[in-house]
Structure formats: C-alpha cells, structure tokens
C-alpha cells in the first residue's frame, strides 16, 4: 500500500517538475521573440539616423551601408550591420556637427544594449534547452531554436 502511495507521489512530483520546465521554456521563447523584435527596431533606428548623417556629410559609403542594412535579408543582416559599423567608424573623424554624431552614438548605444539583451535571452534559452531533462523529453521541439545576433557596435 505504502509502495503505491510513494510511486503516485513521485509521479505527481515528476509531472509538476516537467510542467514547470515547459513553462520556463515557453516563457524564455517569449522573451527571445521580444528581444529579437526590440533588436530589429534598434538596428533600423540606427540605420535611419546613419542615412541622414551620411547625406549631411556627403559620405556616400555611410549612406549606402545604412541603406543596405535597412533592406538586408535575414541571413545578410549581421554582415550588413557590421559593414555599417565599419563605415561609421571611418567617417567618425570627418564629422563637423557634434550634435548629429552625438545622436548617432546614442542610437548606437541603444543598439548595443538591445544586442546584449537578446544574446542574454538566447543564451538562457539554449542553456535550458540543452539540459538533460528538456532534451530527453524533447520539451522544446515545437519551439524555434533561437539564434545569437553577434554584431560589432564599437564606433571608436
């Protein structure tokens, strides 16, 4: 009799544990989606400010790189953002208007923070997906695998 009770209790605890893991995975999935969309907004904002800056400065390389970043397809996105960072770094010395450059630095900082938050979320998600139980039970199989977004945002 006692044996049956123990088996039932262990079964209930296991079910609760698995439910809890599944809830964490789905919350992490939501977190990754949210950070990804915030990241894409931040990247677009930087590209827009850079286009204006490129036009003001008559820096065709900046304008072109910013435009490319704005329209890049998903698989080209990281490379395009890195190109834009490089173009901005080159143009850095040529700026006359400190206000315009300050505005660009501000949106660039926001982009760096958004990237950090996204990569944190991806790392947390991958850590839990890779843990023994979630992997063994394929708890995350219905969720998309998150991707890191590793771009260079260093302007100096």
């Amino acid at each position, binding site marked *: 009799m006692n044996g049956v009770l123990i088996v039932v209790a262990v079964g209930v605890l296991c079910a609760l544990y698995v439910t809890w893991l599944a809830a*964490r995975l789905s*919350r*992490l999935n*939501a*977190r990754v*989606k*949210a*950070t990804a969309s*915030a*990241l894409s*907004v*931040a990247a677009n904002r930087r590209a827009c400010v850079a286009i204006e800056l490129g036009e003001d400065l008559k820096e065709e390389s900046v304008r072109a790189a910013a435009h490319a970043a704005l329209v890049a397809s998903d698989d080209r996105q990281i490379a395009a953002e890195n190109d834009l960072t490089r173009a901005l770094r080159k143009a850095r010395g040529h700026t006359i208007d400190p206000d315009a450059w300050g505005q660009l630095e*501000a949106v660039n*900082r*926001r982009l*760096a*923070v*958004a990237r*950090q*938050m*996204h*990569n*944190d*979320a991806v*790392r*947390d998600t991958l*850590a*839990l997906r890779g843990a023994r139980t979630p992997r063994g039970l394929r708890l995350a199989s219905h969720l998309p695998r998150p991707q890191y977004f590793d771009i260079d945002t260093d302007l100096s």
Partner: protein
Amino acid sequence: MRVGLVCPYSLDTPGGVQAHILDLAEALIGLGHEVSVIAPADSETELPAYVTSVGRAVPVPYNGSVARLSFGPMTLRRVLRWLREGQFDVLHVHEPISPSVSLLTCLVARGPIVATFHAASQRSRTLAAAHGALQPVLEKITGRIAVSALARRFQVEHLDGGGVEIPNGVAVGKFADADPFPNWPGSGGAIGFLGRFTEPRKGFDTLLSAFLELAPQRSDLRLLVAGPGDPSEVLHRVPVQLRERISILGKISEADKARMLRSVDIYVAPNTGGESFGIILTEAMAAGTPVVASDLDAFRRVLNDGKAGDFFPVGDKSALASVLAQLLDDPARRAEMGREGRAVVAEYDWSVVAARVVEVYHSAIAATAIRGQVTVEEVPAEQLDIELP
C-alpha cells in the same frame, strides 16, 4: 517612468551598495522619474520618504562573515504588496543572487527587470557556484548592468552573460561643497586615507611607512585616517612623539566622508590590488583633492591615465614618500590636479550616470513581451497567509 529599486542589504548599516542605490534613486527623482526603493531596515532607522522597509534584517553567519539578510513569508508578503501598489514600469534589482529581498523579488515579479551586479566579491563567487540552481532567477532578468570591467568579467566567467558596463556614479555636488573639519588641512600639509586600514589589501601599511619616513623632516605634516578597525593596531607601530599627528576617525557617515576628503591636501589610495573600480578616487576628485594611487589598471583608467593623479609602484613605500614630498612642495601642481580631477569626474556625476541607466530601462521595456507594468506571478493565496511563529 515609475521605477522600483530593490536593495538586498540592510539600510541600518552604511555600505557601498546601499549608498549606490539611494544616490541612484535621488538622481532618478532629479531627472523627473517616480522612484520607490524596497530594502531591509530596522523600524528605528530613519528612512527617506521613497523607501519601503521589508522589516529588520536577520544577521546570518555566512562564509566567514555576518550577512544581514531578509527572507521569509513576512518579507515575501511585503514585497508582493510593494509590487502591487507600486505599478512599476521597470524593476531594478541589485545583487540579484544574494539570498535576500532581491532574489525574492526576481522570483515573484514579471515584466521588465534590470539587474545590477556590484562587486566580484568572494561571497558572490560562492553563490555563483550554485548558479545552476539560480538559473530560474537569472532567466527572469531582461538586462544586466555591471558597474566595472571587473564586475563584468566576473559575470562572464561565473554567471554566463555580460551586461552593459555603466560606472558607479558620484554625487559630485555633495563632495565639492562639503566643509573641511575645523583646523584642517592646516599649513603643514595633510594626507588622507579612507578604508579598512587593518586589511592588507587596502595597503595602509605602505602609506604609514611613507608617512613615518616624511614626518620627522616635516614637523607639521599630519595624517587623517577614516574607516573601521582598531586604531591601536596601527598606533603601536608609530613612535610616541609622532602619534598625535595621526588622527583616526573610525567609521564615518557619508556626509563626514565628504568633509574628510575636503580636509586633506592629498588623498592616497595605496591598494595592492583587487579593486574593481575605485569609487573613492572619484569621490576625492569630486572634492577637488589631488590623488596619489598605486599603479593599478583600474586606478589608471579612473584617473584619466595620470592627468588627474600621480602613481607609485604597488607597495613601494619610498616611491610613495618621494611622490608625496614633491606634491606637498608644489601647491600649483596640486591645484592643477584638483581642476583636472573635477573635469574628469563630471562624467561620473550621478545625473549623467542615471541617464545611461534610464537608457537601459527603456531598452528593457522595449525588449519585454508583456506590455504594461511590472506584475506579480500567480502565488497561491494560502502561501501568503503563513505567519512567522
């Protein structure tokens, strides 16, 4: 914006993290935000209007020292009420892995959560060892802030994950306008030191030796020391006739710290290492006091690569003595260093630093799926009715 700040350590005792949080709160209020701080505190401790207490912290012997922590059903209830009534747009938790209010808040809150990791102390290292168990808490944090490159490295190595580096702020005005103690610094020169003078890492021995080398030739040179510790441990090494030229103030308040820094001609930071940021240097600069520091990377960075201070090789007492002698004889250079220090420290002023923190708040809000305010996880009602015995 409505900001909820969570402080894990008791406000009954002064400390770096507590001071950081209260200064940040005031700077945020100064920028026009609504701020509420929750922290452990005794009912007798006088608290600013924006602080909510979770009650008295219980001293727990822990890892070789005593941590004053707050944890339990009573604390949980107060945290939940504070979250519900606060309707915060963003929650800013400090030292989230210390087993106290911060951890508890992370567990029960939902929404944009920003976390600041402070020192990379031995204690947090022990906790980080349990980081697998803490993962569910860390998972809820949207954005991380590290107060220094060292704190950031600690996070990368022990907690997987980086964080935005935003330096500690300094309330520049409080230091710049403080009145020196009566009769200080005096005409014969005064040297200052602040910190645990009995802790070898702080390097007070180096300074004391340098002072003992200089004192016989300079009859009015004095040493002003503040910080916790037993003065007799220091004074027994000092010849009797020099003892009255060393003033040891003991542990002092924030306000007296500002006065103390204004009371000396030179501030010395003889640390032997392990300093993550050197906030005391920025405070000395804010007071307009020239700094002489051991040649550590962190100090070099803060002192603008030597423009705002002089260096000596770590632990080298005769080098320190000669740097001090030169500076004591050169008031023009001291004034120049004071001016340079004020210029450097402007970028550490809380108003500037708090604006950067607000940027992170905005990013955290943008990066959170749940729109609207910070809410509370579903907690079964019966759990809230547990009373402490």
